[in-house]
């Protein structure tokens, strides 16, 4: 075992986007920061990767819709190459055999393809959803309130939320509280009638979680989505040029400018704990690196159970960490196509947007049902993008990349993914063929990443991109576990900065930023 003479102020474990944001923020505060990435490249699930010769796609996350404005500002990401142009915002297209319905602008500022009465109903519902998501927004970006030990700033933050609630007015506030933990299915039926629109919203509410639209609290997922913003516009979405890897490149550039030393191919074997304090790490290569602060931007359970080990922490904490639910239900599909597909009834702008196969809330619910029993959806729901249409560099000339997030694909498939994967791919292709006839014949190469694949490739236990189910019981003060939502851990000097911490996953950078801010505030 070799030992480095260098003593770091902070070592960040994991070079996913949250690790990079945490490292950059800490380095900007004057700290000497070393970032250790297990893979050969930073970026984690936000990398852009080649999946077939000449074909590149965003690895897991393929839409940018919640990169936190504070992250953009603090790290001056636009100066480091991030381009957020309102012209790049893309629509969402709800595919249906009855013809598509399109949400233009920021989450359907304009709705086309629906009846006038539905358009008016949507206008009201959209305003209401954004209003309510706005109340939750401060909660979903800042550090959750520490109920036992509240600082003045936290009190003020809570006070602002109370004020925001009051500003809603009496009726609206009552309604906000009424629907808060409701399921999205019932809410949609109260206010809308078009199955296509309802299907899209039901899909968005349950995307990335083990919930069907009729599951209690499923509406929270929609709020989570709408609490995100991009370019100052809540609900907007874009496909970054160059794929998600381009966003990572900008954060990486900011980190390097701030002085972060980035070491790829350096998986960490353990966190060194001395007398209840994390004092460094040992790499799998056997190198000992010491630091005042260790920031883990990888999975919380991996951090505590594997790197620290259950012996180094209390039984109750181990119990809580072990009970974090994180079995993914989403698969990722990459298709290398000979030519761009044609989705029936969708115009050119629509093809550059987000195409959603979720024709009705019942369809989403039926897709969810088998996953409860370890079976994949026979008629899966999915969100499709064709990134090479806007960025031809992602595919050979004339060819096309299709990137899709597909649900439901339970992590623990009963028959095992070795046997189930070809069957599931067949089911997905059948769905695609329905909406884009002829697409199957143009497939040059297909890569399907099941949650088991995502787990292995991106070191996400359970293949869960949130690093822990994002449901009411695992949010806010209970994320990653109750009593420890402040990015700290029972080990002095060890902090958690990944998506497993509040507010959760998606390319937001918020957990990384919040963790770094906490460390700076604690003068750790």
């Amino acid at each position: 075992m070799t030992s480095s003479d260098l003593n770091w102020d902070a070592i960040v474990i994991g070079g996913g986007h949250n690790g990079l944001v945490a490292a950059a923020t800490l380095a900007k505060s004057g700290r000497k920061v070393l970032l250790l990435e297990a893979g050969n490249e930073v970026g984690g699930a936000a990398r852009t990767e080649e999946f077939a010769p000449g074909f590149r796609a965003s690895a897991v996350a393929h839409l940018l819709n919640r990169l936190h404005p504070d992250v953009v500002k603090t790290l001056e990401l636009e100066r480091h190459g991030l381009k957020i142009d309102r012209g790049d915002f893309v629509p969402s297209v709800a595919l249906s055999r009855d013809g598509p319905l399109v949400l233009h602008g920021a989450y359907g500022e304009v709705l086309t393809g629906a009846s006038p009465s539905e358009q008016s109903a949507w206008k009201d519902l959209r305003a209401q959803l954004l209003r309510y998501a706005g109340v939750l927004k401060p909660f979903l970006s800042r550090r959750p309130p520490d109920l036992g030990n509240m600082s003045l700033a936290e009190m003020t933050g809570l006070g602002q939320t109370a004020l925001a609630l009051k500003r809603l007015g009496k009726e609206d506030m009552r309604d906000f509280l009424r629907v808060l933990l409701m399921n999205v299915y019932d809410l949609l039926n109260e206010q809308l009638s078009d199955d296509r629109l309802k299907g899209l919203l039901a899909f968005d509410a349950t995307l990335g979680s083990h919930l069907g639209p009729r599951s209690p609290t499923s509406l929270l997922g929609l709020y989570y989505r709408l609490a995100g913003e991009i370019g100052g516009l809540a609900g907007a979405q874009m496909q970054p040029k160059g794929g998600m890897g381009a966003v990572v490149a900008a954060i990486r550039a900011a980190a390097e400018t701030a002085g972060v030393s980035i070491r790829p191919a350096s998986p960490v074997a353990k966190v060194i704990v001395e007398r209840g304090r994390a004092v460094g790490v040992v790499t799998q290569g056997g190198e000992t690196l010491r630091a005042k602060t260790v920031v883990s931007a990888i999975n919380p359970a991996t951090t505590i159970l594997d790197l620290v080990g259950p012996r180094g922490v209390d039984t109750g904490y181990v119990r809580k960490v072990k009970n974090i639910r994180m079995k993914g239900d989403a698969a990722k599909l990459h298709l290398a196509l000979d030519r761009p597909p044609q989705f029936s009834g969708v115009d050119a702008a629509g093809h550059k947007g987000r195409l959603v196969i979720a024709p009705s809330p019942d369809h989403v619910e039926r897709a969810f049902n088998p996953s409860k029993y370890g079976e994949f959806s026979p008629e899966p729901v999915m969100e499709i993008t064709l990134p090479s249409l806007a960025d031809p560099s992602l595919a050979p000339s004339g060819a096309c990349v299709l990137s899709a997030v597909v649900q439901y694909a339970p992590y623990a498939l009963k028959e095992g993914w070795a046997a189930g994967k070809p069957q599931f791919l067949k089911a997905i292709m059948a769905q695609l063929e329905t909406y884009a006839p002829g697409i199957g014949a143009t497939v040059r190469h297909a890569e399907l990443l099941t949650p088991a694949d995502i787990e292995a490739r991106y070191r996400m236990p359970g293949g869960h991109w949130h690093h822990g189910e994002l449901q009411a019981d695992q949010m806010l003060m209970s994320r990653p576990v109750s009593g420890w939502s402040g990015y700290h851990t029972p080990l002095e000097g060890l902090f958690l900065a990944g998506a497993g911490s509040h507010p959760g996953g998606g390319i937001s950078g918020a957990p990384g930023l919040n963790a770094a801010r906490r460390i700076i505030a604690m003068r750790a």
Partner: protein
Amino acid sequence: MNHHPSIKRSTDTRIAAQSHFRTLRLGTPFQPRIDALGLKQDWYSWAGYRAPHSLWDEELEYFAIRSQAALFDISPMTKYRIEGPDAEAYLDRVTLRDVTRLKPGRVHYTAWCDDEGFVLDDGTLFRLSPTRFRLCSQERHLPWLLDSVIGYDVSVEEETEAVAGLALQGPTSFAILRDAGFAGVERLKVFDLAEFAHDGATVTISRTGFTGDLGYELFVPADKALSLWDRLMAAGELRGIRAIGYTALNRARLEAGLIVANADFTAAEHAIRTDRLRMPDEIGLGFMIDPDKGHFNGRRAILEARAKKKLRHVLVGLEIEGNIPAEHAIVYYRKSQEVGLVSAAMWSPMAKRNIALASLQRPYGDTIVDDLWVEIYAMRELQYQKLMKKAKVVQRPFIKLDRRTANPPADF
């Protein structure tokens, strides 16, 4: 009418399966002997078992402990068998005291805490071999102990029902064991344990107890319980051996200054009110904490509470003027300010003092120990006589008997 034999049968099975309600309190393996001696029929529930408060005479049972030998059934005590290559490391993490310093063949008194540093229970840890332990306690902790297993190569099994236990306490206890034929028992020093042959099985005898007196505890497979009882009774006949109930033992333990979970402090998993939780330092168990040993449950919280001076209570021994026991009396500072409560009290025949255990709110009992009073409500013919008595903080134990630790043990 049709006959439904199948329904009838299933009903019978169901009723049979529900028959537990016919035995509200379980018997221990010694129950046939204890029932025969239980002239007073004065039972209470000890962890679900039918245990005697007193068998024949509280006073004489107490004096059997101090002047003869008392036999007390400790089978209802919760017992866990903890075994495996990592048993030592596991227990070192779960319990407060340094288990690496507990040698095979030794016993120590310890306690364990939750993550917040609040005491879950206290108990005794027997090291039967380098890799095998027995943990005895008042409350049940299997879920906690099993969740603590994660990361260790160790098995934890409850053996409360499988193992019967007896405490033999008092000046003649050694002589009885010797006369019963347990050769080599004279070599046991305080907190030593050893195994002896009994009735084709093995009995584990330790020189431990809950009385502050010379005494032993014996653990034996449940099916050998009665033969062990008979063997001791026969050997002890001329040395005054007597079966006793809990009231007598409770007096002896108070004189010895020992505390009882859920009597002198509320175990963390029982406490409903947050201010009832207690850290080891708050119930006189601070001596168990070793910040230099490896990680243990509650370490972070306990050390933080010490550093930030967040300890709010203290458990003290009191000597109270007069001879009226101050049981559950309120403790006052300057006769007016309420500062705590007595949890156990008695007139001690051995110490010839009116003694008590009390929980006080710091700094009272900690840095302020003068001008403390207890208000005793003495019921006298349907009227309370309120007595304000001076209380003095004194060292525990209240009595110290040389025969407890004398080597070799004396032959009375």
